[in-house]
Each structure stands twice: as C-alpha cells, then as structure tokens.
C-alpha cells in the first residue's frame, strides 16, 4: 500500500467504515489491539511513577506546608463566619504531634488507635485539661488550602472548625509513610479550657516544639507531665462552657471528626506560633496522573461518541452492540477521574 493510500485511509483510525467486502468495521483506534496499547500506557505510567518515586522523587516536585498555614486558614474561615479566632496552644500542638507520632508508629488512619487510644488521651497526656475538645485529621494533600477546603466541604469537619465552643488550637503537620503511602499527615486538635496552666516553660524544655518528621517520628509517645496550674480564664467562661462537667469526656461518633465535651479545665496561655511543617517529594504525581488518565480515557470516550454520531448520519452503518454500554462506563470513569482529589480527611 502506497503512502498516499495510507494517508487517504487515516480516517479509518477514528471513524467506523465499511470495507470492500461489505463488512462494517469500527474505528481502528477502538480495536482490541488499540485498547490493549492504551492499557500498556497506563501500566507504563504506573510503573514509571513507582520507579521515579523510588529513585528520583524530586522530579515530581515537592509539597511543603506548615501548621501555621493551617491555623491561619482555619482562623480566616472562622473570621469569615463571624467567629472569634482560635489562639495557638502549645499543649494542643504537642497532643497533635503525639497523635501523629502514634499514627505512624501503630500505622493507622483513624481517630482511635488500634491499641484503643482516643484523641482525648493524647490531649490529656499533653497536659491540657479541657471542657471541649475536637480533632480533625487529613492526609496526602498538596497544600494547606486544600486541607482546610476539604474540611469545610465536610459538614462534620466544618462544625469542628466553626465551633464557637473552641478557643484554642494546636496542629501537627508531619511527613512520613502512613499505611503504605508517603505523604503529609495533618492532625488538628481543638480545645477549650477553663483555667490556665501549667508550667509551659517546663513543657517546652521537655518537649521542644517538634520539627517535622524527625522529632515526631523519634518520639512515638509523650509521657504525661505534671504541671503547676494557674488560672488565666474567667470563671464565667468556665460556667458557660461547662454546664455539667464530667471527669470522663464523651466521644462523638467516629469516624466523624472527633469532638468531646467534659473534663476539668486547666489550660495554658497562648502565644508563640507553631513552626511545625513538613515536606514530601513527588507532589506533582497526582496532577500528572490525572492528566494522563483523563486524556487517554477521554480519547477513547470521544472515539465512541464519534462512532455513534457517524453511524446515526450514515444509512449504511449500524450501531455496534455494546457501544452504548462502553460509552456509559467510560463516562463514569471520566467522572471519577475528574472528581478525584488528592488527600483524605477523617
């Protein structure tokens, strides 16, 4: 076959057609062999990303964000909703770090640990005694803004973010491998205490605000400390916030973001910012994967759309069996790809 003839038959790759023998053929781009080739592109991309992540993850960019950004964005959302901003609390930050550390060491993605530790046990162990407490979790997001947006899009997480009972916040942003995935874990602890604390300088010496992964990872558990308490909150706050304090916090249904109420309030004053931040390599993988998948599945989908349109216009052609089913499932796959976001919240 000459080149001219080949060029004149290029449209056969994208359009259904009738061969000389009178048999109808679908576009060559939709043959089983062509579909097999598309599949190989997915296999190559998956294998390629795996090798790149292993050998040179810097190629795929670096994700980095900090606890400060999370706190700032949280307060921004609260201000937008007419709520007072939350003040940073180093005890809650340490509780968040301890929780993150425990999640890595016990390798779980949940509010309660496999060994039965609740979010409140970390908060109490860090020396923060509360009237109200809450916890939001997030993992594998590419930036701080996406984390807070994801929480705001979830009614139960949003209620934590915009809870008027919370006065203080502590956040840990830690990178590491959790349940087999390398990424950034965000633990956000909310609290409302009635007293002040505690020997914050002693805590700072015992538990210096952790720098990202290394310190947090090397310190899987934080022992409870005893503190000298001093009150810096008004008693009226206590009365209003804790109409019926109980020694044991109640736990909201999980796996919704955890919220607890109760306990005796002795908390510390706020002040310094939390420098905790984390970085992880391979940040562009999600967007590149999404682009490849959407492009390739979209191409196959379009070929089926073209086939339906062409068949409808050409009298001599008939609609192949199964085309509408293929079109439906490919549309569904496209929806899944388009709707996918990197990261998960709990």
């Amino acid at each position, binding site marked *: 076959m000459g080149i001219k003839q080949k060029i004149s038959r290029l449209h056969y790759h994208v359009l259904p057609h009738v061969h000389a023998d009178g048999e109808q053929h679908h576009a060559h781009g939709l043959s089983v062999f062509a579909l097999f080739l*598309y599949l190989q592109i997915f296999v190559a991309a998956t294998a390629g990303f795996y090798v790149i992540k292993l050998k040179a993850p810097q190629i795929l960019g670096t994700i980095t964000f900090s606890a400060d950004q999370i706190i700032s964005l949280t307060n921004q959302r609260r201000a937008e909703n007419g709520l007072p901003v939350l003040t940073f609390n180093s005890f809650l930050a340490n509780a968040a770090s301890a929780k993150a550390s425990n999640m890595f060491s016990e390798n779980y993605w949940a509010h309660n640990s496999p060994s039965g530790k609740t979010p409140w046990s970390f908060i109490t162990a860090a020396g923060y005694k509360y009237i109200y407490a809450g916890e939001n979790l997030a993992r594998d997001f590419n930036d701080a803004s996406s984390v807070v947006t994801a929480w705001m899009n979830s009614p139960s997480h949003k209620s934590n973010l915009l809870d008027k009972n919370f006065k203080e916040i502590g956040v840990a942003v830690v990178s590491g491998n959790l349940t087999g995935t390398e990424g950034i874990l965000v633990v956000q602890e909310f609290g409302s205490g009635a007293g002040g604390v505690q020997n914050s300088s002693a805590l700072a010496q015992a538990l210096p605000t952790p720098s990202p992964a290394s310190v947090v990872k090397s310190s899987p558990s934080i022992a409870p400390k005893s503190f000298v308490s001093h009150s810096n909150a008004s008693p009226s706050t206590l009365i209003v916030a804790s109409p019926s304090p109980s020694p044991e916090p109640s736990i909201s249904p999980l796996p919704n973001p955890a919220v607890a109420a109760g306990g005796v309030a002795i908390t510390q004053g706020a002040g310094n910012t939390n420098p905790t931040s984390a970085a992880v390599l391979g940040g562009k993988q999600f967007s590149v994967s999404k682009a490849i998948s959407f492009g390739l599945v979209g191409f196959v989908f379009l070929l089926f759309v073209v086939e339906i349109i062409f068949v409808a216009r050409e009298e001599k052609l008939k609609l192949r069996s199964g085309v509408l089913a293929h079109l439906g499932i490919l549309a569904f796959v496209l*929806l899944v790809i388009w709707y996918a976001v990197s990261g998960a919240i709990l």
Partner: protein
Amino acid sequence: MRDTINKFSKFDIVGHVFLYAGLVVGAFGVFFSRYDTTKQFFVLVLLIIFYLVWGFAYHYLKGDIHRKLVMEYLMIATIGIAAGFLVLMS
C-alpha cells in the same frame, strides 16, 4: 438518528436503562466518598464488575456474544480500573 433509535428493541431499552441506573447510583457513591480515595476506587471497581456482568448477561440473552466482544468489554474494564488505580491509589 431516529432510525438508529427505532432499531432498539424493548429489551435493549430496558437493559440500557438498568445499566445507566447502576452508573447513576455509582456516581452518587463517588460523590459521597470524596476525600476517601480508597472508597472511591472501591466504588469504581464495583461499577466495573457491574458493567462486565451486565455486558455478558445482556449479550448472552441477546444472542450476539462472541469472543471479540468479550475481549472488548474486558479491555475497557481493565482500562477503567488502570486509570482509577493510577489516579486514586498510586
């Protein structure tokens, strides 16, 4: 186009409505499992299994099932799972 639609039997129409209803249910599943990529992938796999079972049953009952068609269904199903895996799980 009207001729093409007229060629559909009642069986074709009911069958495809059933398939598309399943896909709509799946779309809700994907929507409600946002921010949980594992769940989304699980929904995708379930829907692809549904598509395969539907396809084999539909073409068997219609009497036009053949090897090439089965391969086509399998290839598209595998592409769907591979695309979902690449985006949601890798």
